[in-house]
């Protein structure tokens, strides 16, 4: 193929059959249909779209003329020159002229050697309208000599390459309809999971990521669903009331409307009422706290109420067993003064892991209710999990969690069958006890595993590390050995974590931008500087 040089600056082109120079021997409707099919040949192979308009100002104006017709390229009667078109541009740029003396065929006929397929010639001429010159490949659509058209015509590869070089291939819609973060199907029940007996009768509800699980149609998919009970009742509507007080939590703005806790005018993030204040308040310690009863007004039991059988039950998130106790969780980390076990960007959200908990930070900041046990998000992890070693999101969007000598691979929240697998499966040495960190390096798209003084490059396609690894961590200048975590943030930069601080890494220079660390809690957790810890960071 040959690209002439000029191309349209936009891909949504308009076309029109000239209002004044229409074919004298052809039905105009049939002609337009054939022309549209000819344009579709190029549209199917590229990002171009064509819209028919009724205007001589369209990008591509098709006209039929004989002999001299106001351009420097007169036709020659029947035979020889069939048509010509102009390269992209203003004015007559993109226009296509057809010799009206030819015997144009709207439908190809095998027995007609004299006739000329309008579809074949139009498809060729429109190639010129889009910027392609003639091709010397026999069989190509842009071959200058007429070749007719075959049934089930498919755009030849030479022409496809040419048009895609100019305008790009047609966008794939493979992922267009797949919802965000929804697995294709859950794994079979043969997945081994540890089962333990619970000490309470209530079941722990697992949080879902971007999935509905509490709607009527989710719980009872086979039952008919009406948005609300459309059953008239003589009794007044029931609306559950919110409790008159909320548990005190340092991360939650608390507002109190009851007499016991009058509304304050000065709401401070960490404000803690004391007995010395003038407000008649009750001291409520930070821990422990007691969950109020939901709802504070139980639904009355109306006799013969038709809605009794079809109530619209309000939903309240179930509390875990831990929150119903009065003892303080002793290992919940302080987000403003802790190191991290692992940091990963999963589905565009930041996950920070510490001990058996993790924080989740989205576009709007911290999610409420965190830190949360990691096993609540990924239930297939060991129940006795103490901490994770490394986490990263693979290019295929699966989530890899490294714990000790094993890798747990999740498809959303579901463990992929066959996992966990030992690290040795991926070419890592048997003697390796754990990984420190793992990431997909945005600089080159490769996956790297880090442990101690060494790092490996992992081939996602082959499923094992490359043969000339491990290499010395000194390659990553400035981060030292035994890092805690590494990941690529949305800004495209690489961040290495060690202790309570982090470095920003310069991918081009292969060194940290600043030898001294920045405090992690201030940058990633939003903690005030004075709470970030006064211990000097790693250098």
């Amino acid at each position: 193929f040959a690209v002439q040089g000029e191309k349209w600056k936009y891909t949504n082109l308009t076309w029109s059959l000239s209002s004044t120079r229409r074919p004298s021997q052809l039905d105009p409707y049939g002609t337009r249909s054939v022309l549209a099919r000819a344009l579709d040949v190029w549209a199917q192979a590229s990002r171009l779209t064509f819209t028919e308009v009724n205007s001589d100002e369209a990008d591509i104006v098709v006209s039929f003329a004989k002999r001299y017709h106001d351009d420097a390229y007169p036709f020659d009667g029947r035979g020889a020159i069939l048509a010509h078109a102009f390269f992209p541009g203003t004015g007559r740029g993109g226009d296509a002229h057809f010799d009206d003396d030819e015997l144009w065929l709207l439908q190809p006929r095998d027995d007609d050697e004299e006739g000329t397929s309008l579809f074949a010639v139009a498809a060729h001429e429109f190639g010129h309208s889009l910027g392609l010159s003639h091709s010397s490949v026999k069989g190509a659509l842009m071959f200058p000599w007429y070749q007719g058209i075959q049934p089930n015509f498919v755009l030849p590869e030479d022409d496809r390459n040419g048009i895609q070089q100019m305008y790009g291939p047609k966008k794939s819609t493979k992922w267009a309809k797949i919802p965000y973060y929804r697995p294709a199907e859950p794994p079979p029940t043969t997945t081994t999971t540890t089962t333990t007996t619970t000490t309470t009768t209530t079941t722990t509800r697992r949080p879902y990521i971007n999935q509905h699980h509490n709607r009527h149609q989710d719980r009872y998919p086979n039952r008919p669903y009406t948005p609300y009970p459309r059953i008239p009742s003589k009794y007044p509507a029931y609306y559950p009331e919110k409790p008159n007080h909320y548990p005190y939590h340092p991360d939650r703005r608390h507002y109190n409307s009851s007499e016991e806790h009058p509304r304050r005018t000065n709401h401070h993030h960490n404000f803690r009422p004391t007995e010395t204040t003038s407000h008649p308040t009750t001291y409520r310690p930070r821990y422990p706290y007691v969950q109020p009863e939901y709802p504070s007004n139980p639904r009355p039991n109306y006799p013969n109420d038709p809605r009794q059988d079809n109530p619209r039950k309000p939903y309240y998130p179930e509390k875990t067993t831990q929150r119903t106790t009065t003892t303080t969780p002793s290992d919940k980390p302080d987000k403003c003064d802790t190191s991290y076990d692992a940091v990963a960007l999963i589905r565009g959200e930041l996950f920070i892991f510490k001990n058996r908990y993790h924080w989740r930070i989205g576009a709007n900041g911290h999610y409420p209710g965190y830190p949360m046990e990691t096993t609540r998000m990924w239930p297939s992890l060991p129940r006795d999990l103490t901490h994770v070693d490394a986490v990263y999101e693979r290019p295929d969007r699966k989530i890899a969690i490294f714990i000790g000598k094993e890798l747990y691979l999740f498809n959303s929240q579901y463990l992929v069958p066959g996992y966990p697998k030992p690290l040795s499966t991926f070419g890592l040495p048997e003697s390796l006890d754990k990984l420190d960190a793992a990431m997909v390096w945005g600089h080159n798209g490769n996956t790297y595993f880090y442990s101690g003084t060494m790092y490996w490059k992992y081939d996602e396609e082959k499923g094992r590390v490359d043969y000339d690894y491990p290499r010395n961590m000194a390659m990553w200048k400035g981060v030292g050995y035994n890092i805690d975590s590494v990941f690529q943030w949305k800004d495209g930069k690489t961040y290495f974590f060690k202790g309570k601080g982090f470095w920003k890494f310069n991918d081009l220079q292969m060194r940290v931008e600043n030898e001294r660390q920045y405090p992690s809690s201030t940058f990633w957790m939003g903690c005030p500087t004075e709470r970030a810890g006064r211990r000097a960071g790693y250098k």
Partner: protein
Amino acid sequence: RSRPTRSAHEKSARSYLETFGYLKKGRPEVGNLQLMGNEQEYEDDFRIAIKTLQEFGGIPVTGEIDTATKNLMKQKRCGRPDREDGEDEHRRKKR
């Protein structure tokens, strides 16, 4: 030196080659004057153009206006040149 005679076939072939970009279009008013002293180059350009046409059209490359070349020139085709203006400037000038 006597002026060379051009057959009708050669004239139509030359016109064809000029129309579709294989030969540079000559200026008729000075065409004969240019011939004098540049005949060899004139013939070389013509033969090269024929060869280029034969190569482009996928027929045996002979440099002569043979039957296959004549048939090729008679076939129905697009009116755009096969070689656009300025293409030669980007090509290596062959000795």
